Every structure is written in C-alpha cells, then in structure tokens.
C-alpha cells in the first residue's frame, strides 16, 4: 500500500468503526489493527483520530450533478439551495452521534482545518452573484457573506438536529430555511403583491455586488469564518 492508499483505507475503515461503536469507543490502536498497520506508521502519516472524523464531514460534493458546476441553471435559487444542502446531507447521513462528536471536538480544539472545496465555493459565489443581479435574492449582504450565513445555518441546523430529541430531517423545511435566509421573492406569501413596488425600489438600491478579495487564509469548521467577510456586511 502506498501512502495515499493507506490514508484512504484508514478513512474508510475508521468511519465504519465510528458508526458501529461510537467515536469515543474507538481507539487509534483499534483502527490500526483493523487496517494492519502499527501505531507509529499511523502517526507517521501525520493523522490524528480527530482528522479521521473531520474527513468524514467533508462533503464529497459528488452528490451534486456534474452539470451543477458548468451549466446555466434553469432555476438559480434551486441550484444555490442544492449547493448548501449537500453539506447538510453529508452531516445528516453520518448520524446524530457522529455530528455530536464532531461538534464536540470542534468546541474542544478550535477551528479544525476543514476547508471548502474550491470549485464548489467558486460556483456557489457565482450562483449567488447571478441571483443577486437578477434580484432573485433580497438578502442585503454580499455574496461571500451570504455564503458564510448559509454555512452558519448548517452549523446551527446540525446542532439542532443532533441534540433535539426525536428530530428527523425534513428536507422541505430545511430547504425553505435557506430560501428564507436568501430572502427570495418565492419565500414571500401572497399578501405581498402590494409591497412589490416598494421592494423593487429597494432592489435598485442594493444591486451592487462586491466581489471580496479571495481569502485563502483560514478555513474554518464547515464554514470559512474570515474576518474580511464579517466586516463586509
């Protein structure tokens, strides 16, 4: 096995073990013996047990159709919601126990370096900017900040989903939440047609889209929490 093969096997095996026995009940020694390597070999790969769990939470964006990345979407808002939901789907599919373990290690050892998938991020920003320029999104923040807000929604949702007893994923409600965040005209109710004119005037005031300088600095946990993004609201 070469280095990458070893790492891939470790990711795969450890996730199975975490899901079967619970994160806290799996020792590094157990993982090593399951993949027939020694503990020194494991550490020589510069991995920790936390890294293994962290990797499981990195959405592998394959769930998104390849056309999501390069085709003109028929519905921009749906495309944005799909992009946000992929991250949540990944977490939810791992189950409540692993979400809790993941949040706990984040709260113990700050800012795990989970980084965003770059093509995904670029596509998300493009979609948000398109939707903003077509006035499909009324959220007042710039694209980068809106993306941050979406990821914060995911973190909050993960906390709620994993701790609130008896909660099951209701996709419609989850997706509707993203729409409410974006503040899409579709998320409004009928009574609003009278306000339409007023909203249009409001739109023209805020269609300036600022592209924030690309900030590779500090990938955070599920979301990139850059100070720059914060100051730009």
């Amino acid at each position, binding site marked *: 096995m070469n280095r990458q093969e070893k790492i891939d096997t470790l990711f795969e095996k450890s996730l199975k073990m975490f899901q079967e026995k619970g994160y806290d009940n799996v020792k590094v020694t157990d993982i090593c013996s399951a993949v027939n390597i020694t503990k020194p070999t494991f550490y020589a790969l510069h991995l920790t047990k936390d890294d293994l769990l962290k990797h499981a939470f990195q959405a592998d964006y394959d769930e998104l159709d390849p056309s999501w990345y390069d085709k003109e979407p028929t519905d921009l808002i749906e495309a944005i919601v799909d992009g946000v939901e992929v991250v949540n789907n990944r977490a939810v599919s791992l189950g409540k126990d692993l979400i809790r373990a993941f949040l706990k290690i984040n709260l*113990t050892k700050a800012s795990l370096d989970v980084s965003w998938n770059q093509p995904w991020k670029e596509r998300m920003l493009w979609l948000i900017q398109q939707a903003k320029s077509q006035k499909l999104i009324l959220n007042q923040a710039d694209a980068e900040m809106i993306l941050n807000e979406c990821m914060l929604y995911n973190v909050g949702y993960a906390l709620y989903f994993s701790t609130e007893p008896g909660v099951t994923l209701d996709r419609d409600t989850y997706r509707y939440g993203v729409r409410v*965040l974006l503040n899409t005209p579709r998320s409004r109710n009928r009574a609003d047609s009278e306000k339409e004119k007023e909203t249009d005037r409001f739109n023209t005031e805020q269609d300036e889209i600022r592209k924030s300088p690309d900030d590779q600095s500090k990938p955070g946990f599920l979301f990139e929490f850059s100070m720059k993004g914060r100051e730009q609201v």
Partner: protein
Amino acid sequence: MNQSERRPEIAGSKQQLYMDTALQLFLEHGYDDVSVSEICKVLHITKPTFYRYVQAKELVLVNAFEKMQKDVIKEVEQLMKHNQYKDALMYSLTLAHHAASTLGFELFAVYLRSLLSNEGTSWQYSPVLCRLMIESIAKLQQEGTIRNQADPKQIYHLLVHLSQGIAVGWCTEHGAFDLKEFYEKIAGSVLGFS
C-alpha cells in the same frame, strides 16, 4: 428532615446561592480548574450537601443560561408593551450572545459540550420567548420595518439556527469577534431592515 427540605423557597434560594457561587468561581478560575470540593470550601458546606442541590457541575451553566433567558423575557415583554418591536426582536435574538459573552467562550464551550454529551439535552429557547419573537416578526412585517416576508415562524426558526451556528463558530474561534455586533449584522441582512 431538615428545615430547608420542608420549605421549598429556602431550598430554592440555597440552590441559587450554590449555583451563583460556583459560577463566580468558574468565571474567575476557569471551569476545569474549579473542583466541587473547592466550591464547597468557599461555601462552608460538605460535598453531599452541594450535590443535594446541584446534581452536576454542568448544571451551574445550564442554570445561568436559563436565568438569563428569564431576564431577557421580562425585558422583551416590556419593550413589546411599548410597541418597540424591533428592539424587542433584536434583544431576544442576542440572548445567546448575551449569555455567551457573560460566560466567555471557554465556559460557553463547556455548556455546549455538555449539551452534546448528554443525550436528550438541547439548546432550547423557551416557548414564551419563541411566541414573543414570532409576534414581533409579524408586527415588523406589517409595519414594513423588515422586508423579508416569509412566514414569521420560519423566519424565527432560521434566526435561531443562525444564532446557534454563530455561537458555535464564536467558541471555535475563541471569541475572536464581537458576537453581538456580528449577529446584528447577519440578522439585519436576512431580515432586510428598511
């Protein structure tokens, strides 16, 4: 049976005293560096006495959070009586942030970790606060103060998720930014204040 067990109001005030003293010690020395024995020493009580009123160390933080929530509800009710719905909403929204800033990121992270460690405990907003917030959102929509016209209940849920997500982020970043200010900005961008 001793005096305090017969009289619930005394038991309650004793419990509060123990909780408050423990919290004060946590704030001064850090959660992990204060043992129950040390709390008892300061209070001049025995460990069994302490545990009779406070079943677990973590409950001190849960209690502090609930107490703050009660204070917030009182304030929000007052604001709503005077038709100050925007202030009422923003005040309730910053509840988590008020609690978090009072506790500091370390203690707040301990609180969140304890929620995550104990099955069946979650970070709930009280139903009263929930009702007040939804009412304020609906009023603000009618007044035209906020532009987001989604169902008030859905807006409420979104704001709670966002608020909790931000609080988690704040802890993982070791309190590196002003929580209240950040949240006000985000809530503003979502609600679309006119």
